[in-house]
């Protein structure tokens, strides 16, 4: 297809570089430098989408990121499909494939358009008033239908294979927007020596200058000045230029998030490049130079394809060499309509008429239009348009003293509208700056700042090219100056706005400040007209009026009730007109209606950008012990415990978990097993006051624990509940080797540091995490001593010299070790602590030494079974943050004589010793083969009516191969007093009888501990 709507020459496209692309399966051509929008328009395509609610045909409204209609799905392949992209921002590349959305079966014939016929019955908020009967029908019937109709594009159904990266950057001055104000600001800041970042959402830096054909700056054509300025900035070391980079979020303390599109515009992106990059910029000062957005006019049938913003049409002509049509009618409330008319005429578009809402039409641009022979009609409105899939004519009518006269139909293939410009205050508002209504400008403008930022140019209501350039320069200079005295993110006193230190003479058409907010008069029956305010969400002027009639007085209510401003452009095109309509309906001035808060992101931002590299194995650290690889090589199955991987069990060929665990358990009880306990937290508590500190942090008494001995310690939160436990070794008078649970290690250390630093800074004691210093190899079983004895030097392993719960230092195969005689299995046991660099080597040596005893590596599951057989608790399994030491039979570990320790006072509350507290007990099922479900509840009478009173729940439950039956631990109300009684564990289909027993199932006297 040819580009029938290309201008003969001009624009910034590369006419020597044609590109071929597909839209809805049809092949088109465009040029390098085109957007998908400009290329489609060049091919005469305006119908590109369907609206959200009524499925009305829609064309391009704008040429930028405010586009509400032209949303397409761009797919490089099945997995690289992105819905809802604005065609106005999609850069053309060879082979690009785009699809229209929200239509079936095709864009030109969309069955959903039946909604348009039903529109009278679907006013704003209709769904709140109906679909209520019969009860339940909403979920079953109405909602699925509504859901199917709603939504825009289709979410991809394959995982996104592309990468996203994230970078932190710091600068003195961040300039957002590279139009004339932003360029001048960057130039000024850079010349002051500041480190500057200049970003802009568009592919090319330049903003409105990219669409200028006649303006001059400092004596040069705007395009030449732009090129020279960019060359100057590029050459400076202290400036970073970032095109294709949207500043989408303004977060506290001048933390600005930028989204850079790295490969989206490339036909064949390199595999090592990220698709997008998040820049988290921390700027000492920010200059917001976001420009202004042209406002549509709200008139009947203003949504037909071919109806678009006048200045966007000018951009298509001047920047992209593309004509929006052959014959245009212009509807304007300001001089922008004339500027567009003149430029389009120059590009070869015939201008049928200019309807000007204003009565007084004077000034340079209107004069030039008249001189060019254009039919200019003051006090004239558009009262409608016609055409099925493209506008074919417009109805113009004269307004006399508020009365709309008869309409004249003028044939056209495009209607260009301009209601004036709305300063783009989104980022300023996100920064929590207060917006102030400026009656003269008819706009909300930045008022008091909160963050260290300033606005420059059109986004703060400055207009006229020279004034904008000079304002940008002045703000850039001021920002650089303020950055020099930066001390903290808090904003200091606002300096008086400086005059620019140099003038930047420029000539360009002055558009003035005229404009219109609200709905233009049309004299037609409003019940039968649709004058759109929010194109995408199909919100019309009458919807807004209905909302006010129904009592919605706050703009937030109106917005939520009608959904105006909630489309994917987030109100960029609709907010001000909605305010105007509500203001008129309530007969209340605009500033009294309020303004909805602008929220991040400025434009929709890819989820992957936020997620960045955090996926799969690096979603969270995968922590592995020094012995992990050995376990993996020996077939271990692993489980996640926090972010550690722990060997769960070591299945042999043909074994399932049950079989493997049974074998491992028996091996430990009968001979010897070995277990990697390295993940246990370890803290070295050192200093003259170490024992005193331990006394205060743990329930136990530590003063009398002799060096060389171990003690099981219990730690409480200040509210009296068990927080952690672990074996503690006293290495010397002033040195404790503290162990914690695997998951509790960081929490316990932080808890200790908290008390030490803030409550007892006078104590001479220091804490150092040694979790990763030590690999811990537990060797457990009757043969444990025999296994390790040949390997150990410097420690007398005899029972007498090294009794249970002792610690000694020596070496194992020459490696320094802290050897614990300790058991979490009830068998004779040792825990060999060695520096983790030697963890695997020592493990292998122990394994080799144990082979003659059939030493069996075991995992966490066997560890759990063995300790449950002994009734040892696991914090976090038997306890859930609501258990006192006494509840879990650890009352013995509470130093009654101690005056105080963390948590002691809370234990004195009556509730903490109430007799019906849940207490740790054992359960034996009457049928020994039944293994209870962990988490199952315990009741006295399963047949009781709902709610069935519950007495407790099963915390741990296993099949014990050694005992040949199931065992369980449970927390049961008044449990200790129920020992010997029968209770029931109700399951969905039946109840299981259990006997409450002492929670020690194996070797209750502890005779095996000493081997």
């Amino acid at each position, binding site marked *: 297809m040819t580009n029938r709507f290309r201008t003969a020459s001009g624009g910034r496209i590369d006419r020597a570089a044609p590109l071929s692309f597909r839209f809805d399966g049809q092949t088109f051509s465009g040029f390098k430098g085109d957007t998908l929008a400009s290329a489609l328009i060049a091919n005469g395509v305006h119908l590109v989408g369907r609206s959200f609610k009524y499925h009305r045909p829609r064309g391009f409204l704008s040429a930028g990121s405010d586009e509400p209609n032209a949303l397409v799905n761009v797919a490089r392949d099945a997995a690289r499909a992105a819905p809802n992209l604005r065609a106005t921002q999609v850069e053309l590349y060879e082979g690009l494939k785009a699809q229209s959305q929200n239509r079936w079966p095709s864009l030109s014939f969309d069955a959903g358009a039946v909604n348009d016929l039903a529109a009278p019955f679907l006013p704003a908020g209709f769904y709140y008033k109906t679909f209520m009967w019969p009860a339940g029908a909403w979920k079953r019937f109405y909602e699925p239908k509504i859901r199917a109709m709603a939504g825009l594009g289709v979410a991809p159904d394959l995982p996104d294979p592309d990468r996203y990266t994230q970078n932190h950057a710091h600068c003195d001055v961040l300039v957002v927007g590279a139009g004339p104000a932003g360029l001048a600001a960057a130039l000024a800041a850079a010349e002051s020596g500041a480190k500057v970042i200049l970003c802009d959402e568009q592919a090319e830096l330049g903003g409105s200058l990219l669409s200028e054909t006649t303006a001059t700056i400092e004596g040069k054509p705007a395009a030449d000045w732009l090129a020279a300025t960019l060359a100057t900035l590029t050459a400076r070391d202290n400036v970073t230029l970032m095109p294709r980079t949207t500043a989408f979020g303004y977060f506290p*303390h001048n933390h600005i998030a930028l989204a850079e599109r790295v490969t989206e515009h490339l036909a064949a992106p390199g595999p090592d490049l990220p698709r997008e990059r998040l820049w988290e910029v921390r700027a000492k000062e920010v200059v917001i130079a976001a420009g202004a957005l042209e406002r549509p006019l709200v008139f009947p049938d203003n949504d037909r394809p071919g109806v678009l913003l006048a200045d966007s049409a000018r951009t298509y002509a001047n920047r992209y060499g593309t004509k929006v049509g052959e014959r245009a009618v212009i509807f304007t409330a300001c001089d922008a309509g004339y500027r567009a008319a003149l430029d389009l005429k120059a590009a070869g578009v015939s201008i049928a008429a200019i309807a000007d809402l204003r009565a007084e039409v004077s000034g340079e641009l209107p004069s030039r239009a008249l001189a060019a022979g254009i039919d200019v009609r003051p006090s004239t409105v558009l009262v409608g348009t016609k055409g099925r899939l493209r506008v074919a004519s417009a109805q113009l009518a004269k307004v006399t003293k508020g009365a709309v006269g008869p309409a004249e139909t003028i044939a056209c293939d495009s209607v260009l509208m301009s209601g004036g410009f709305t300063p783009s205050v989104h980022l300023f508002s996100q920064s929590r700056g207060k917006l102030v209504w400026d009656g003269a400008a008819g706009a909300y403008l930045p008022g008091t700042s909160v963050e260290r930022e300033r606005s420059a140019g059109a986004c703060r209501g400055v207009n006229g090219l020279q004034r904008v350039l000079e304002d940008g320069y002045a703000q850039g200079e001021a920002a650089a100056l303020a950055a020099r005295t930066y001390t903290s*993110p*808090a904003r200091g006193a606002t300096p008086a706005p400086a005059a620019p230190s140099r003038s930047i003479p420029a000539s360009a058409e002055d558009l003035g400040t005229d404009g219109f907010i609200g709905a233009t008069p049309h004299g037609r029956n409003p019940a039968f007209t649709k004058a759109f305010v929010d194109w995408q969400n199909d919100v019309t002027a009458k919807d807004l009026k209905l909302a006010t009639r129904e009592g919605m007085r706050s703009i937030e209510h109106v917005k939520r009730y009608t959904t105006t401003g909630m489309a994917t452009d987030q109100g960029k095109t609709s907010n001000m007109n909605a305010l105007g309509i509500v203001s008129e309906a309530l007969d209340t001035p605009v500033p009294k209606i309020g303004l909805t808060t602008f929220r991040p992101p400025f434009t929709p931002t890819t989820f992957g950008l936020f997620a960045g590299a955090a996926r799969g194995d690096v979603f969270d650290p995968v922590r592995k012990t020094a012995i992990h690889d050995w376990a993996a090589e020996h077939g271990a199955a692993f489980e996640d415990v926090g972010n550690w991987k722990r060997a769960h069990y070591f299945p042999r060929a043909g074994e399932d978990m049950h079989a493997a665990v049974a074998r491992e358990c028996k091996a430990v009880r009968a001979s010897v097993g070995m277990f990697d306990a390295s993940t246990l937290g370890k803290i070295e508590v050192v200093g003259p006051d170490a024992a005193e500190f331990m006394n205060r942090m743990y329930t136990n008494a530590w003063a009398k624990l002799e060096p060389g001995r171990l003690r099981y310690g219990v730690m409480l939160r200040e509210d009296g509940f068990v927080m952690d436990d672990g074996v503690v070794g006293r290495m010397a008078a002033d040195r404790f080797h503290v162990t914690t649970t695997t998951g509790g290690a960081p929490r316990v250390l932080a808890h200790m540091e908290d008390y030490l*630093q803030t409550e007892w800074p006078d104590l001479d004691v220091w804490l150092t995490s040694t979790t990763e210093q030590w690999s811990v190899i537990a060797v457990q079983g009757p043969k444990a001593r025999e296994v390790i004895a040949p390997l150990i030097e410097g420690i007398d392993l005899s029972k007498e010299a090294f009794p249970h719960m002792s610690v000694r230092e020596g070496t194992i195969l020459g490696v320094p070790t802290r050897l614990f005689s300790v058991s979490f299995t009830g068998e004779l046991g040792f825990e060999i602590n060695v520096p983790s660099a030697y963890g695997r080597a020592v493990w292998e040596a122990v394994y080799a030494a144990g082979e003659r005893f059939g030493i069996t590596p075991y995992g966490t599951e066997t560890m759990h079974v063995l300790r449950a057989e002994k009734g040892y608790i696991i914090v976090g399994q038997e306890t859930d943050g609501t258990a006192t030491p006494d509840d879990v039979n650890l009352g013995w570990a509470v130093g009654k004589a101690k005056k105080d320790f963390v948590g002691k006072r809370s234990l004195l*509350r009556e509730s903490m010793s109430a007799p019906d507290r849940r207490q740790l007990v054992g359960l034996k099922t009457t049928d020994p083969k039944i293994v209870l479900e962990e988490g199952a509840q315990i009741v006295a009478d399963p047949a009781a009516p709902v709610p069935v009173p519950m007495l407790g729940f099963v915390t741990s439950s296993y099949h014990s191969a050694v005992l040949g039956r199931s065992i369980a631990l449970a927390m049961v109300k008044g449990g200790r007093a129920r020992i010997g009684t029968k209770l029931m564990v109700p399951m969905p289909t039946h109840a299981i009888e259990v006997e409450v027993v002492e929670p020690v199932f194996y070797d209750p006297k502890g005779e095996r501990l000493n081997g």
Partner: protein
Amino acid sequence: MLIITCPWCGARPEVEFRYGGEAHIARPADPSALTDAEWADFLYNRTNPKGLHAERWRHIHGCGRYFNALRDTVSDFFVTTYKAGEKRPDIDASSGGSK
């Protein structure tokens, strides 16, 4: 992400810190002397002001120190930070440039 000025390390990003709740709630010297209500007040009740808040932070991924800060909970700007154990500076929100 806030910028927090650690009294030792200077201005650092929030991710290096851990929030520690309201400051200047000293643990009673003799908890057993307190009534249940007094103890609950220490344990649970918090000022939770809308405005200037004295609070604890720990530079956990930095120097490890706990310190105190005055922050305006409406704007989230810090007025000052100071070392643990030091008295709360006699500042009100308006003087700290938090507006």
